[in-house]
């Protein structure tokens, strides 16, 4: 598998923006900073949602990682701007570990670099009409509906759902996949089957 810090990064829009920030006087490459923020903030937020399971904590992580990244680029401490993706992923991982330890550094950074946070809008995840989802759920076979409800009520993995249903994790995954595929196509009829 190709790692994030391989040369392809140098041609990416993220790397180009990072190079412009690093080459400019601190704070003078506002357009590049906004571009980098627009590209990477939603990804950092998504990482936070996945690993912290909390929208507010994910937003905090996103802000912390982006301010840290821009500050490191401005100050020249991120010596290889082409590897900005690798840096951001590493920062996300460290921040998750810090958050789990209740580290205060994150809040200190947010206070110090609050001005940088104004440069781009927060990406908002798509939302589906809940009545439409409910209607589509009703159309699923009972077993698939039950597995989806038991899965998504609090985002349980297949093994936990299987234990609650008295069946194997593999069986749950098969039913879950079938159900989610039908649900996606029902909620968004223009979508292809996965």
């Amino acid at each position: 598998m190709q790692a994030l810090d391989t040369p392809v990064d140098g041609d990416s829009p993220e790397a180009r923006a990072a190079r412009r920030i690093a080459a400019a006087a601190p704070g003078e490459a506002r357009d590049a900073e906004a571009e980098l923020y627009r590209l990477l903030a939603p990804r950092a937020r998504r990482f936070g949602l996945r690993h912290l399971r909390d929208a507010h904590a994910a937003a905090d992580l996103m802000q912390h990682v982006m301010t840290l990244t821009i500050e490191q680029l401005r100050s020249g401490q991120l010596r290889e701007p082409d590897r900005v993706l690798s840096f951001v992923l590493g920062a996300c991982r460290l921040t998750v570990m810090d958050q789990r330890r209740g580290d205060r550094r994150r809040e200190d950074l947010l206070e110090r670099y609050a001005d940088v946070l104004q440069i781009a809008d927060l990406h908002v995840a798509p939302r589906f009409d809940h009545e439409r989802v409910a209607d589509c759920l009703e159309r699923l076979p009972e077993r698939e509906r039950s597995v989806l409800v038991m899965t998504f009520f609090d985002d349980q993995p297949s093994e936990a759902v299987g234990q609650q249903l008295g069946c194997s994790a593999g069986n749950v995954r098969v039913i879950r996949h079938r159900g989610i595929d039908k649900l996606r196509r029902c909620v968004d009829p223009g979508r292809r089957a996965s």
Partner: protein
Amino acid sequence: MSATPQHHPSIEALLDYWLDDGDPAAIEAIDEHLMRCDPCGQALDDLVALGDGVRAAFRSGAVATMATDAFLKRVVGRGVQVREYRLPHNGSVNCTVAPEDELLVAHLETPLQGVERLDAVVTLSFAPDVQHRLEDVPFDAQAGEVLWLPKFDLIRNAPAHTAEVTLLSVDADAAHELGRYTFRHQPWPGG
């Protein structure tokens, strides 16, 4: 298939990733992939939003479903106000919904050993000619009961009526009645 910068993870792999169903190496690979691939990130966002929709539909009582006691314990553990009725085999109950209730659950005791497939048929007294058949209901054979979670938002506003649930064991040859349960619903007094 594992994710790499060149190979986009499937929807199934993204769902495994979100639900923590993959091994740590697969999760790391998708972390890396999502850091550079916005289309896959948006596909994941869609899945998460769909999961939010399922949760919202369930919490609002807009879907009926069958579940198990282990799942119910999770729901109660999350602070959901649940009204439960326990019906013995072939039993009946007078039931209602209080204003503070958020979920209605019926425990239907029934012998499940040896059952291959379980169906449930629901009829309502105000529409006696209409049968709602739930096919291939999930169940834990060891539990000796099935949990029915009816459409709560419908029942909350329903007038007095009787609902009958018939559980059927279905095999290759025929369907055999396992049990029949009667719910005599009354609206909450003054509700």
